[in-house]
């Protein structure tokens, strides 16, 4: 009884009236009453899911689709020419100066891969061998043309601050199978992202559902050992007493964040025994380590946006750790790498980042497939937008070596988790300016992702400041063409 009252007071902004309770029950929102002492307990989905876990590979900064996924020979023909004013007059750019901007052809060589015949540039040879396992979307478009709002939109469904991220919604909606690890883990490489922690925030959801950021230097998780002289038994008794006292405080204050605190201490204790074996990859075969390229030589670089030396090993290890987490029941793993924001020196920078990412990402897909995990694991490759067919001419520079932000048409891909393998979705025009067939908005993408987890995106809601919020806000159509 008390539990029910807490549920109402804490999730409906303290209104908790019977009338409201009956409305909520009619809509199925109270069908699953949450156990506040175990907020990450697994919950049933709305309908049978295809995917159980998600690995989201987020290449912050916007990789150039024109140089990787969406070949535009026409741009080479038009190289150095301006676009007609009519095309750019209502367009805002981050840095391009419209008066002198010129088309920039791609020097990349493209080839078709797999039975699906996906065109990929020479920067992505390993990914090419997975072409038939991937659902390629060339018709993404976004509403945001700068990084942080774009990242918020892509990760949290809105350009506004304070919304929960995709991983938080999934952890909230489905709980987690991993009792001894967080439901949602964030691994990073490269520089920090401009979105920072807001990209994996739980927003207005309880903080239990936020992404847990592991360190990318030294030990990924600190303080897994008890203090000197303190036995496991003492630790266990301490946390038990602590949670008892915090529980009493919770009853008195009705502050639901104390539930998160209690859950975090319990999980901390369980992680002390579970995390070391997760993070120690010495039980992997040499073949596996080599396939991911953990100990590859890192080439000398003329590129600086990707975070300097040492990122190859970090990124590859993150991919491998993601697989190890999925095996242990973690619901959502985000792999961030920053940055792919190639305003200048694009050829060298993009080559370097692709050398870093191509092999481990392909290895991850193959490894998941071999282990029978790809069917239930949705792998995403995404970023906040794409890059312009125009060269970037900041400061009137006539010799553009990079591209500006381009939200109107870009490419991302999904694999596994019941999406259509070897499918190429959507088309862009001759110069890659706009989408000409099957446009997919960010809300559509999120609706489709939730659908794969057995969640109706219109029904996964949380009441905050007087209204029910959802990941897809008030839009989003499940894209049936993308799924099996």
């Amino acid at each position: 009884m008390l539990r029910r009252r807490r549920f109402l007071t804490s999730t409906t902004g303290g209104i908790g009236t019977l009338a409201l309770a009956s409305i909520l029950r009619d809509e199925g929102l109270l069908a699953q009453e949450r156990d506040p002492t175990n907020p990450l307990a697994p919950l049933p989905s709305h309908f049978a899911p295809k995917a159980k876990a998600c690995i989201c590979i987020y290449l912050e900064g916007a990789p150039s689709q024109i140089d990787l996924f969406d070949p535009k020979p026409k741009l080479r023909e038009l190289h150095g020419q301006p676009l007609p004013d009519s095309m750019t007059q209502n367009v805002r750019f981050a840095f391009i100066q419209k008066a002198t901007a010129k088309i920039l052809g791609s020097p990349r060589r493209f080839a078709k891969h797999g039975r699906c015949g996906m065109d990929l540039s020479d920067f992505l040879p390993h990914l090419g061998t997975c072409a038939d396992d991937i659902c390629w979307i060339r018709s993404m478009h976004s509403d945001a043309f700068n990084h942080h709002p774009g990242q918020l939109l892509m990760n949290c469904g809105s350009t506004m601050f304070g919304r929960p991220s995709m991983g938080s919604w999934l952890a909230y909606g489905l709980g987690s199978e991993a009792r001894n690890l967080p439901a949602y883990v964030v691994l990073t490489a490269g520089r920090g992202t401009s979105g920072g922690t807001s990209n994996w925030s739980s927003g207005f959801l309880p903080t239990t559902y936020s992404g847990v950021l592991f360190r990318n230097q030294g030990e990924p998780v600190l303080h897994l050992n008890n203090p000197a002289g303190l036995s496991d038994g003492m630790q266990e008794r301490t946390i038990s007493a602590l949670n008892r006292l915090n529980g009493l405080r919770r009853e008195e204050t009705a502050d639901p964040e104390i539930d998160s605190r209690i859950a975090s201490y319990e999980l901390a204790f369980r992680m002390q025994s579970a995390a070391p074996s997760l993070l120690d990859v010495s039980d992997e075969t040499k073949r596996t380590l080599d396939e991911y390229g953990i100990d590859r030589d890192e080439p000398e670089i003329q590129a600086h946006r990707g975070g300097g030396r040492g990122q190859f090993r970090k990124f590859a290890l993150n991919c491998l750790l993601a697989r190890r987490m999925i095996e242990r029941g973690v619901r959502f793993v985000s792999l961030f790498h920053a940055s792919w924001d190639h305003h200048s020196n694009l050829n060298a920078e993009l080559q370097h980042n692709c050398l870093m990412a191509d092999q481990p990402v392909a290895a991850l897909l193959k490894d998941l497939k071999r282990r029978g995990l790809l069917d239930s694991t949705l792998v995403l490759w995404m970023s906040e937008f794409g890059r312009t067919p125009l060269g970037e001419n900041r400061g009137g520079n006539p010799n553009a070596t990079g591209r500006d932000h381009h939200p109107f048409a870009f490419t991302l891909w999904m694999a596994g988790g019941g999406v259509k393998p070897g499918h190429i979705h959507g088309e862009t025009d001759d110069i890659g300016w706009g989408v000409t067939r099957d446009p997919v908005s960010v809300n559509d993408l999120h609706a489709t992702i939730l659908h794969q987890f057995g969640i109706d995106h219109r029904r996964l809601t949380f009441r905050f400041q007087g209204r029910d919020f959802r990941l897809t806000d008030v839009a989003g159509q499940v894209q049936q063409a993308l799924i099996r």
Partner: protein
Amino acid sequence: MTYANTARWVESKGKDRYRRGMYTWFQRTSPHPLMTTFDAADGIVCTVKRDRSNTPLGALMLLNDPAFVECAQALAKRILAEAPKTTSERVDWLMRTCVGRLSSPAERMAILGLHGEMLVLAKAKPEETAKLTNGISAADARTEAAAWVGIARLMLNLDEFMVRE
């Protein structure tokens, strides 16, 4: 979250060790792990609003980081030196000192329960116990001291101790 490999954080010695965390050097590209764990903005771009988290990593740090363990040991030392002698009075003293009020009967029961359990566990492993009470007690009083380190650590990890309502 460090990406520039520009700082290696080492444990301070001497007086520096006891300065407040707010005086820790802020290396923008390699913030101190404590800052990252407790939601410091990473300094890449302006941050309009700091996110707050409540992760197991924060719990691990507050439980096991040598800095916080040493705080618990120092508090235990004060209990032994400054607080009245009976267990019950010491619990009152601790509650007043840490959260500015007395305990409810249920709270008192939980605290005394842990005190008893710590005594038993500490007694079973005298050599280990010595490590926990190093420098704060004489050899013959270690078991009792260990129990109070445990209780002090409990107090310092209370939600009520950490969160200002």
